[in-house]
């Protein structure tokens, strides 16, 4: 395949995808206090790899893959230092978050923020493997083929994990929604 003529510069890549990477890292279970570090590492890896980017996949899928690997490495590193550390933190770093509440509809924004917090807490109940596949499929909208490319998993493993992740998430979400009688539009 020919190298894509639309390979972005690093500046373009960063400006277009910094928020996406930070959000993805958070959803993959990176504690709020580590999101900045993981985002930095992801873009440092992307910086060095960009010259070799051949456009075989979309920039976003390529960046998914880098983020996935950086988060995995970060997770292993912290697990060695403190095995119980990863995934316990559900704190929100106020500095990391841009001013929420912006927008024309405060109620809608409040619903979104609340839904995000609920989803984040439910994601942390999933195993890391299932969480990653679930986030990529259900929140980021990647196809099984794209998840296979990002994670390096066999297609059958992608399907198996996704099925298990959906069951897990559904279980926890149903429990939460029943307990709170909360419904989202």
């Amino acid at each position, binding site marked *: 395949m020919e190298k894509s003529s639309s390979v972005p510069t690093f500046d373009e890549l960063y400006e277009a995808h910094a928020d996406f990477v930070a959000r993805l890292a958070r959803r993959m279970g990176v504690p709020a206090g580590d999101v900045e570090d993981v*985002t930095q590492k992801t873009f440092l890896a992307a910086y060095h790899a960009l010259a070799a980017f051949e456009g075989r996949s979309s920039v976003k899928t390529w960046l998914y893959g880098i983020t996935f690997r950086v988060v995995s490495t970060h997770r292993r590193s912290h697990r060695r230092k403190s095995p119980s550390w990863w995934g316990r933190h559900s704190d929100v770093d106020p500095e990391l978050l841009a001013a929420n509440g912006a927008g024309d509809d405060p109620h809608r924004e409040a619903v979104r923020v609340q839904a*995000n917090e609920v989803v984040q807490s439910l994601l942390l109940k999933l195993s890391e493997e299932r969480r990653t596949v679930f986030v990529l499929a259900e929140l980021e909208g990647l196809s099984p083929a794209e998840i296979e490319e990002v994670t390096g998993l066999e297609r059958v493993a992608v399907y198996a994990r996704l099925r298990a992740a959906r069951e897990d998430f559904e279980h926890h979400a149903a429990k939460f929604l029943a307990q709170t009688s909360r419904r989202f539009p």
Partner: protein
Amino acid sequence: MSKEHELSEPTKALLRAANAEQPEALSPEVRSRIKLAVVAAAAAGVGATASAKASPLHVPWLGLSKGAMVAVTTSGVVMSAALASWALHHSEAPEASPAPASVVQPAQVPQGSEADPPVHRDAPVASRVLEPVRRVSPVATKESAMPELLQERSVSVEEPAWSLQDEARVLRQVQEFLRDQRPAEALRLLDEHRNVRPFLQLRQEAQAQRVFALCALQFNAEALAAAEMFLASEPAGPLAERVRHACFLKNEDDQK
């Protein structure tokens, strides 16, 4: 995927609500800070691969006017490291006129023409550092024996901005010198720039590169002091790890 494994409608609604119109995940300050850190780390060679040279983040060398002046405060170890660098430079080029406070552009740096100075490993570090000073020719010594490094300088308001890209470019050159086993030139370039226009945005990265250069020159006491200075302000992170491992410092994790 079979129907039975699909999410229920309330759960889908929850996910849709969470995904709707995502705001910026990073505040502008954090966003800028991360980008700065990435560029700095890349310039310092952190995470570099073979493709690093071909990275699209090539920035133009804007050039700084000769005689550019900035306030320089020198003391202690930093001063002696600067002296070492200055001495190394002048010992190899005694005919040089009294050094103006100019920035050496990468293209002006001699490529491979300057061997590292002879050092006696058994000699005290201080004498090794200062030894080249004694080899400076009388003329050069008379004109510039008290190097301008010792003097405070004033800031010229006409100076062009010393941008992040400028600093990154210099550090990339320093890194190339180190990679090419030319630590004396790396140290000299660092000090020449610092004396003219100190690193501001990439100060930590420049300090780390100084440690690497001093280690390579086996100026161990200087390197240790520079490393301690660096780690005091930057105890964690990829650069801190590299500094700890530079030549003699052990990672805290390794000691456990």
